[in-house]
């Protein structure tokens, strides 16, 4: 039945204080209003408020600085900066298109690899896994997130890239070469390598958030579907995944946000050549890696300003992506009623 909403049942409340939307209790406000030590309390409150607002000031300051320092290229090129593929520091002609292309393509490759795997892991850990394995396995996947980017890069350079060059790329060229996506010289490094290492890096984020969202689906949904005679997979598909899909999309977008801004590992394997090529095996360049590589060499103001404008674009895009993802995840985990469609 389209759009029929079912109440989600009693929400799991661990204590009355854990709900941030709930105002302080009557007793507490009474006790607070008696006003012993009024000025020190007020000073303390203002101090804490100042610190909380400083978080906002920091974000605003970052945005302001990026805007200020990139005003040269914004004034000179305007929006065409993002649609030109020239990158010539000597003659002062700058366009960010190859870098945008590299970032978008490597992130998409990462998502295509990571999303099915992450959802598979989440399904296994929440619905199928024996209790003994659940703890260690989820700990292991969380541990993936704790490895620094530069160590992933190191591993990619010395282990992943040779494997891709010797085994994976020749196979892809032979079987899928006709698509044009896997052709040209086989360097090992390039867009595909960047996509694979990004996929490994964003997997834990997507899978842990997906798990969170799936756990939030009320048990009555699972029981109802099972009671109708569904197999376990049908229960997962109809009872869990369908209810959690908005949250899963949120988790994927959050993973995308992480992939867009990832710097070190990508810089080490993407090849660092500002080119737009159809083949995933060719060398590329991403927005974050051009900043990492060229920022300290940027001698004149226009060059520096071009790099900072790329940073500004990255900043704005990740803010948008993250905001969208948070909204979607919130919509699911914040006790929105489950829907049957």
């Amino acid at each position: 039945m389209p759009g029929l909403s079912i109440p989600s049942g009693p929400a799991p409340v661990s204590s009355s204080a854990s709900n941030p939307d709930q105002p302080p209790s009557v007793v507490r406000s009474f006790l607070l209003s008696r006003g012993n030590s009024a000025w020190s309390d007020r000073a303390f409150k203002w101090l804490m408020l100042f610190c909380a607002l400083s978080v906002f000031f920091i974000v605003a300051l970052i945005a302001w600085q990026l805007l200020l320092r990139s005003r040269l290229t914004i004034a000179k090129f305007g929006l065409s900066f993002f649609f030109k593929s020239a990158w010539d520091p000597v003659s002062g002609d700058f366009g960010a298109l190859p870098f945008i292309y590299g970032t978008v393509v490597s992130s998409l490759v990462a998502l295509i690899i990571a999303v099915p795997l992450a959802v598979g892991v989440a399904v296994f850990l929440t619905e199928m896994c024996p209790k003994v394995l659940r703890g260690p396995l989820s700990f292991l996947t969380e541990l993936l997130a704790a490895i620094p980017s530069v160590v992933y890069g190191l591993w990619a350079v010395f282990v992943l890239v040779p494997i891709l060059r010797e085994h994976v790329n020749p196979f892809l060229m032979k079987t899928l070469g006709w698509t044009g996506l896997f052709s040209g010289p086989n360097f090992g490094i390039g867009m595909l390598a960047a996509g694979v290492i990004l996929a490994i890096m964003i997997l834990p984020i997507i899978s842990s958030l997906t798990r969170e969202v799936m756990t939030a689906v009320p048990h009555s949904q699972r029981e109802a579907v099972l009671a109708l005679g569904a197999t376990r997979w049908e229960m997962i598909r109809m009872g869990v995944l369908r209810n959690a899909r908005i949250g899963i999309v949120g988790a994927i977008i959050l993973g995308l946000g992480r992939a867009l801004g990832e710097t070190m590992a990508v810089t080490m394997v993407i090849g660092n050549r500002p080119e737009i090529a159809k083949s995933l095996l060719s060398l590329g360049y991403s927005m974050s890696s051009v900043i990492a590589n060229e920022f300290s060499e940027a001698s004149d103001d226009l060059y520096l300003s071009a790099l900072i404008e790329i940073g500004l674009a990255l900043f704005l895009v990740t803010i948008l992506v993250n905001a969208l993802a948070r909204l979607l995840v919130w919509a699911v985990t914040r006790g929105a009623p489950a829907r049957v469609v």
Partner: protein
Amino acid sequence: MTTRRYKAGKANQWRRFFANHLATAIAVASTVIVVAPLVAVFLYLLYKGASSLNLNFFTQIPRPVGESGGGMANAIVGSAVLLVLGSLLGVPLGIAAGIYLAEFGRGGKLANFVRFTADVLNGVPSIVMGIAVYALIVLPQKHFSALAGGVALGIMMIPTITRTTEEMLLMVPNAIREAALGLGVPNWRSVLSITLKTASPGVITGCMLAFARVAGETAPLLFTAFGNNFWSTSINEPIAALPLQIYVYAISPYDEWHRLAWAGALVLILLIVVSVALVRYVTTRGVLKGAS
């Protein structure tokens, strides 16, 4: 007619049975595929790193190209300096913001706004943080400095600490706050020595998570702390850092430097894992638990 329908039902059942087992197999397979690279990274790191670690690594500074030996002693000390600077900025600010969210702003529009900006700050790419701090501190000062690196790391610590502090404070039962206030304790005292103390194991864990996250950050240090091949502990000069040194050595063409990069990566991972594990251990069964 009936038999046909029966047969169709039978086929359908087989299909469902098959789909069920296929889905299970796929889920199991994807878990294996995900865990495999992790194990591969760790084992390879242990193998490569352990074979190139020696005492020199911890006591010497980098040697010029061509000379064998040398270590990363200055980078280890430099990372420590940067992390202390970062913690000095990030921990108090983060905890205070968390206290505001949990104790004063509960349910208010302002709190939601602050919470949202903390999430935004959490999502800012680390390289962009590097540029912003470069524009903010390095450009006016006209030189790279440890201070700038510390500020970049500190800012990156704030959102994690704020959100965990808020969550941990919200778990403290209201009755404890009311009891403190009922005894005539001023509110600020009640927040600091009752609520925050009760939540301290969780808050400390949050700080350590933030610490572990920034300990491996390279991108924000590239043009703030910049790196240094010599001893330096001055906060006004460029300073070496372990992740930076690993990066420089990893992209170099020399085998000797690759070896050192692996050793550095192993030390970095051990530092992160040990510090997190240690804090988990202390907060779950050590002295700190007495508070809760």
